[in-house]
């Protein structure tokens, strides 16, 4: 059972539709497995509705509704959105059925990585998958900027606790840690690293929860 949840502020930015796709993906993957946070987002969506209602209103053009009806009539019986058919999870859509079979690049010791930033061509964030082999250790490291991470498979532990599948973690420069993959599965995580507003140095290093 997941125990590390996104904070309310992130969920609010999600509900408002203000997050980038990679960040939204991390939240969505968590929501799909966490009824508790889903209920928090429901409340936030209602907050959005109430905000919209309490703001000024702007009248639409006189012909607006007619145009709408004309459009509806011109596209007869368009198929309703297929909610009944099971959807692929966004993760499967992005990465296929088995994340263990991806073209992982062995990095250091127990750690493999795969940069999937190119799956999000509209964003300038780095999106990185990482795999720590079962029982493996990553070298101690800290983080630069904020890194949002969700555990996709297995679990890892550091001095802050155990992070299980679908747990949500945000790490920053204060967090020096030495993660260990616990359990009998390789631990796979998805991390999003926002480009800092002010870039001060070269920005080429692999930034992720395991290795810096």
């Amino acid at each position, binding site marked *: 059972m997941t125990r590390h949840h996104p904070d309310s502020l992130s969920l609010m930015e999600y509900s408002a539709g203000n997050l980038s796709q990679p960040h939204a993906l991390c939240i969505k993957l968590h929501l799909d497995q966490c009824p508790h946070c889903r209920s928090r987002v429901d409340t936030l969506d*209602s907050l959005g*509705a109430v*905000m919209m*209602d309490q*703001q000024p209103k702007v009248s639409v053009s006189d012909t*607006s509704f007619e145009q*709408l009806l004309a459009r509806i009539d011109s596209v007869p019986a368009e198929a*309703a959105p297929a909610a009944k058919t099971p*959807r692929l999870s966004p993760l499967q*859509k992005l990465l296929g059925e088995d994340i263990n079979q991806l073209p992982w690049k062995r990095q250091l010791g127990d750690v493999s990585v795969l940069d999937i930033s190119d799956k999000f061509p509209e964003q300038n964030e780095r999106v990185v998958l990482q795999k720590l082999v079962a029982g493996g250790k990553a070298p101690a490291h800290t983080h630069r900027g904020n890194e949002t991470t969700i555990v996709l498979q297995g679990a890892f532990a550091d001095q802050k606790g155990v992070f299980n599948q679908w747990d949500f973690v945000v790490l920053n420069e204060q967090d020096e840690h030495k993660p260990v993959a616990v359990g009998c599965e390789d631990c796979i995580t998805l991390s999003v690293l926002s480009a800092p507003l002010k870039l001060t140095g070269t920005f080429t290093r692999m930034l992720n929860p395991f290795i810096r």
Partner: protein
Amino acid sequence: MTTLEQQKAKPEGRKDPWGPLLEKVGKTQDRAAYHALFEHFAPQIKYYAISNGLASHAEELVQEVFISIWRRSCLYDWRKAAASTWIFTIARNQRIDMLRKMKRSSAEMAIETEDLWQIPGDNEDEPVTSLHRLMSERRIRESLSLLPEEQITVIAKVYMEHKSHQMVADELEIPLGTVKSRVRLALNKLKVILQDQNV
């Protein structure tokens, strides 16, 4: 859903005047009901578009949202969201889509907006979990009226102007920490903060 829950949920559901109209549209393509929804929500959505920086596309966004409402209304389930909440999520997704289309290069995305931002009720597997959803809009309205203006201002900027907490801080010339604490105080009242819930 148990009978008991149904009995409890129903009166609350009826307090949402827009839900039944949306259901009429979904079940019988009722155009009078559709028009009533349009009269009420279109001006809100137009302002939403304008405040989000889409002034020159505001009518277009209204159209897209209402086309989507027409096509999806058969999926609307009042037990999963109040009508206005459901419509808000559609407006939000259409706004995200429109911004994406406007800046889209040749690159096609592997995932759609709706893979990332779900409309309540789209996922059939999701059980109707609680009365919480039905209560929440009324409760939010009540709680909001008690919040200080400075907290509402921050929330409005996040929801209506597509601004991150950092951008709100820059605009109001207050520290990011102050913005966050205002939001936290507000969300605490609205019972979104984790500790207030039965985890």
